[in-house]
């Protein structure tokens, strides 16, 4: 059983030809159906192109987009064929604009065919040269003056980007503690106010001045003030905020120590 599946797996290696662009695909279709590029048969080519489009594997969105643009152009041209301008004209006649578009497409295909051929030629050269081994790193000491001929802005940009990335990787990352919820912070303030008559905002929010913590504390305080659970006052701009218990019924703090709260408060200022 194993041998059988193995041979089957080996026998089924299908190599699907990949196209590097819409022109590549179109050119392939023209060649396999022996079509004269000078009068591109829009009808058949469009159908074949769309059929092939489904089997094309897209590397990225850009490439996919390029294939779609070509599909749209072909469909546009084909739609023009469906509306003959002149009933006496032979079939497959396009109007002026369509004809221009077809000419342009044919021209692009011809041009691409040349580039493809040149690319293939270069590929052959590269394959030949890959068999020759010479020095890639010199044995000689470096020259006193660095030749600047082969440098470019691009290389400079690459170098600085690499450096920045390197630094970023080395820098210690700051791990933020889970910020408290406003509700939790409100509970904490109430808990504190149960034992003392007044507290300082900074002692609740933390001396480290972590922004998130200060914001949460401020929101908690404002909420408590709104609910009438606490009072807050600030003697001067950017000065310390003093939080006081607002509940008159809070006998634990307000009534027995009615003599010292003002003292405590002024001592803080």
């Amino acid at each position, binding site marked *: 059983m194993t041998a059988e599946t193995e041979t089957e797996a080996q026998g089924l290696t299908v190599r699907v030809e990949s196209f590097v662009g819409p*022109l590549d695909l179109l050119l392939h279709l023209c060649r396999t159906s022996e079509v*004269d590029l000078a009068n591109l048969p829009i009808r058949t080519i469009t159908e074949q192109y769309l059929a092939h489009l489904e089997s094309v594997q897209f590397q990225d969105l850009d490439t996919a987009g390029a294939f779609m643009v070509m599909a749209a152009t072909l469909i546009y041209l084909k739609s023009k064929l469906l509306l003959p301008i002149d009933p006496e004209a032979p079939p497959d006649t396009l109007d002026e604009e369509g004809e221009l578009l077809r000419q342009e497409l044919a*021209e692009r295909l*011809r041009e691409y065919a040349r580039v493809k*051929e040149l*690319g293939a030629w*270069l590929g052959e050269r590269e394959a030949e040269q890959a068999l*020759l081994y010479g020095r890639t790193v010199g044995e000689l000491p470096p020259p006193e003056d660095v030749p600047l001929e082969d440098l470019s802005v691009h290389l400079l940009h690459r170098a600085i980007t690499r450096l920045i990335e390197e630094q970023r990787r080395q820098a210690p990352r700051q791990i933020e503690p889970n910020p408290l919820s406003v509700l939790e912070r409100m509970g904490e303030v109430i808990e504190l106010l149960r034992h003392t008559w007044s507290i300082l905002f900074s002692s609740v929010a933390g001396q480290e001045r972590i922004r998130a913590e200060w914001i949460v504390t401020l929101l908690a305080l404002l909420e408590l003030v709104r609910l009438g659970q606490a009072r807050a006052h600030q003697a001067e701009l950017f000065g310390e905020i003093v939080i006081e218990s607002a509940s008159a019924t809070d006998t634990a703090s307000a009534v027995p120590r009615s003599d010292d709260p003002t003292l405590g408060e002024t001592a803080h200022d």
Partner: protein
Amino acid sequence: MTEPIDVVEALLFASEAPVEAERIQEVLDLPSAGEARELVRVLGERLDGQGRALQIIEVGGGFRLVTRPEVAPWLVKLARSRTRSRLSRSSLETLAIIAYRQPASRPDIDAVRGVNSEAVLDNLLDRRMVRIAGRKDSPGRPFLYETTRDFLVAFGLRDLADLPKAEGDLVIPEPPVDAAGAAGSGEGGESSPATDAAQQDPGSGGAGVTPRG
């Protein structure tokens, strides 16, 4: 006694970049670059005649001492690796456009290829096959690219004139220009009868490419 020809051999052996005839002339205090060339030619013949594993090739405007292709399999074995990484078809096409247009901008290249060539260009820049030659005076002032000496070396070209002659200039497909291409020859890779037939079609627009070697 050390003969000048032995010095030339040493220069080529020790240098990583192709050594120009002018450089050999300068180092050896020769009266002309022509004499330097002659020395290289004689050295090359000597290597060929002795059946040595090394040969001299002329690339990128200079001379290099490299191994012969026949010994490549052993070198690959020595390196314990596969053959060198080769450029993709997209890269080769892009290089072809740049090589023939010198310089070409990315919009030019995209127009001919019909796809976005940004990633391909980045790769070619990294491999030093092309470099930025400046900016084009057109909307967006895109970068212009040209091929480098490394390109010539990688493809074994003495200079850009070594590229196969293309029929006319490479056209950027905006205005439809008449460009009757000659019959194509030697399309790489494909060998189905239908393809071959299409290639003989005079309308298929070949560039008259005759691969060397």
